């Protein structure tokens, strides 16, 4: 593995332009000042209750995601390119989903194998031949991006189902502005606080055509024991919409209502943070107590908009991901602005044998996994883990893809020994409405706090940073 590119120190020893001010600050600010601010940041997060439940960790149903106070900085030109690439990618994702559940031109043209779509667990046959309001499927996308050198950003994953993390993006900025006002006077940082407004505008823009001029939007949560509940309540609050659970909603004559202290109130748009499987026990998993019986039939009748649409998981799959460059070319007629990480599809025989021969160098991922669970990072794995993955791969090669172990870029980060480089990724949030695509500059930077670790997921001990896009 090559030496990682550090976003502050660069490759030639000279501090990179975006970080000059920050480096100077780091060099001059007294250590106890930093220590004080770090403990204040922690206190702040704990008081407001930003916690994250980690599944399988009985000790701590609520745990704080570590926050690193050194921001990650992107320049305006870097961001502009990313933004264009993101808009292109999400536009293609929406067109692809409309096609998969509609005319299926891309399958007819052989852009990707049919079985990858039809046998995909994220594919919802119920949606075939149906149109969704305004033909938008992925209203909220969280596109994971990694960087390997000054000019190369790769898309690592397209989170097209219910991406989370945006509350950390917003709260991180809030905390930074409170703790380090001096940094914000020295840097022109593009604001992110308009995200809730953009999200609300997006949701309202996709209300069903028969909805009133003032559509009622709600946020549907699985409830307070969900790992992202804090975010659900945070967003509902910032948007000024009701935070509902399945039991707060009911369907009568294919119309969705919520139970209020003044009787039933009609609901037009549901920003749902529940997976497809749990949305409606009548249509999907009958044992789901999180969903709303009859919701799918109201959806099919066109009386309610679900954000994201049902069935977007088919585009969020790591096997389909590997075809995204072709999908982008097919639907936009353009060359992809953002590239994929080179990917071996283990379903292909040659690729599989290459992967099996090079397991210690590769990252192997389950096609349908997420959150950093069920993946193998070859260079960091024990022999036993590698053999276990070898067995899994031979047994069900279709379920896996493999990628080279990238030298993810690093950013200066506070650790026990002082300031040290740690690997980062970036999750910008892309909002697709019926009127336009909206992106706030930046996104959520996740950082792997363990030395050398490449796994940034909060469920696996990752932390977060504020992300700055310099506006000058």
């Amino acid at each position, binding site marked *: 593995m090559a030496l990682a590119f550090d976003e502050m120190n660069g490759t030639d020893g000279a501090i990179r332009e975006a970080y000059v001010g920050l480096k100077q600050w780091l060099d001059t600010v007294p250590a106890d000042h930093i220590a004080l601010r770090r403990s204040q940041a922690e206190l702040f997060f704990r008081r407001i209750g930003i916690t994250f439940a980690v599944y399988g960790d009985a000790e701590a149903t609520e745990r704080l995601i570590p926050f690193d106070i050194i921001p990650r900085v992107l320049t305006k030109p870097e961001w502009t390119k990313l933004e264009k690439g993101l808009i292109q990618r999400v536009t293609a994702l929406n067109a692809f989903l409309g096609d998969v559940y509609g005319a299926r031109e891309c399958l007819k043209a052989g852009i990707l194998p049919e079985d990858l779509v039809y046998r995909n667990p994220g594919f919802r046959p119920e949606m075939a031949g149906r149109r969704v309001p305004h033909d938008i499927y992925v209203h909220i996308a969280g596109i994971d991006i990694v960087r390997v050198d000054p000019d190369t950003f790769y898309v690592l994953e397209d989170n097209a189902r219910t991406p989370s993390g945006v509350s950390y993006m917003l709260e991180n900025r809030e905390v930074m502005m409170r703790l380090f006002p001096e940094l914000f006077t020295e840097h022109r940082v593009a604001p992110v606080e308009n995200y809730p407004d953009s999200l609300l505008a997006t949701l309202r823009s996709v209300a069903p055509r028969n909805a009133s001029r003032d559509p009622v939007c709600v946020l549907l949560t699985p409830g*307070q024991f969900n790992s992202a509940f804090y975010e659900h*309540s945070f967003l509902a609050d910032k948007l000024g919409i009701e935070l509902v*659970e399945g039991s707060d909603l009911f369907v009568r004559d294919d119309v969705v209502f919520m139970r209020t202290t*003044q009787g039933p109130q009609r609901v037009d748009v549901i920003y749902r943070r529940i997976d497809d499987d749990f949305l409606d026990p009548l249509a999907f998993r009958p044992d789901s107590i999180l969903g709303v019986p009859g919701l799918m039939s109201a959806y099919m009748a066109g009386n309610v908009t679900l954000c994201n649409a049902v069935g977007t998981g088919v585009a969020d799959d790591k096997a389909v991901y590997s075809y995204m460059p072709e999908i982008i070319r097919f639907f936009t007629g353009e060359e992809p602005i953002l590239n994929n990480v080179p990917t071996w599809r283990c379903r292909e025989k040659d690729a599989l044998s290459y992967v099996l021969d090079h397991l210690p160098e590769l990252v192997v991922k389950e096609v349908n996994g997420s959150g950093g669970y069920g993946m193998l990072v070859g260079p960091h794995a024990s022999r036993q883990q590698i053999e276990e993955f070898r067995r899994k791969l031979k047994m069900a090669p279709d379920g896996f893809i493999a990628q080279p172990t990238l030298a993810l870029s690093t950013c200066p980060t506070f650790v026990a020994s002082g300031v040290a480089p740690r690997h980062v990724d970036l999750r910008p949030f892309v909002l697709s409405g019926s009127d336009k695509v909206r992106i706030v500059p930046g996104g959520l930077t996740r950082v792997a706090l363990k030395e050398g670790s490449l796994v940034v997921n909060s469920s696996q001990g990752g932390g977060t940073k504020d992300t700055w896009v310099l506006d000058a």
Partner: protein
Amino acid sequence: MLSRTADNLYWVSRYIERAEFLARVLDATARLATLPAAYGGAGNEWRSAVLTAGAADTFDQHHGAANERTVCEFLAFNPDNPSSIRNCFEIARSNARAVRTALTGEMWEAINGAYLELRKYDSQKMTREEFARFLEWVKSVSLAFDGSAYRSMLRSDAYWFSRMGVYIERADNTARILDVKYHVLLPETERVGGSLDYFQWSTILREVSALTAYHWVYRESLKPWLVADLLILNRQMPRSLAASYENIVRFLDEIGRKYGRQGPSQRLSRSILTRLENTTIDEVFKTGLHEFIDSFIVDNNKLGAAITDQYLL
């Protein structure tokens, strides 16, 4: 607003109010229990505290004798007691978390801060003095929550439902004290020249933080019927049944006005208030203090159920 949100707000307030009530009962009981027998220390004060908390059945399942150690642990910390102070705070916090957006930041911080602080208390290692400080702390949490609600909430349905929880719970708590202690207030137990029950009466007043108020209102030494009058009918006394119902009626009316519709809970609350307004403490004693309190507790529960039916389901 969502019915579930209203329901959660209502119960958050009830649980916080209940925690404070338990703290006051424990505080007053500890004081009474230290008195020599000649001054009315009858030896069953701790049992009486469990009864007042309405937790006798659960207590009997877990403990044999009611004494300072068992009762304090049970009412303050025991996880098996659904209404222990610890459980009250934990349930309140869990309800608050579910409706985080309906609370103001100050209210959430009061509850969440209490929840985090609570973990620092270790019931096993607590000295008497530490326990007393713990009870003071519980009261301060309730005060902080109440004060932040009063100061920071919009005067709208969320506020009214939250307040309603406070007063329904408060009326229930005051009535329970009377229900357990009614016998010491009956006239035949009063003896000329100072009664052994004097300290029982002052304990009752302490349990509702009204010992000083009593003297301001009546300017007399403690008389059992005046203690009953203060707790039942006196509208100046914020924990009396009458004062609680004045508030309940007011908040239900606000809700009815906002929603443009009155219902069973408005009617029931008004009829309970009318009964409290149109009676004197003499009449209460004539018809039977115990019967009066019993039927009040039943009515208060009925109103709770009516509010739930009308708004919270």
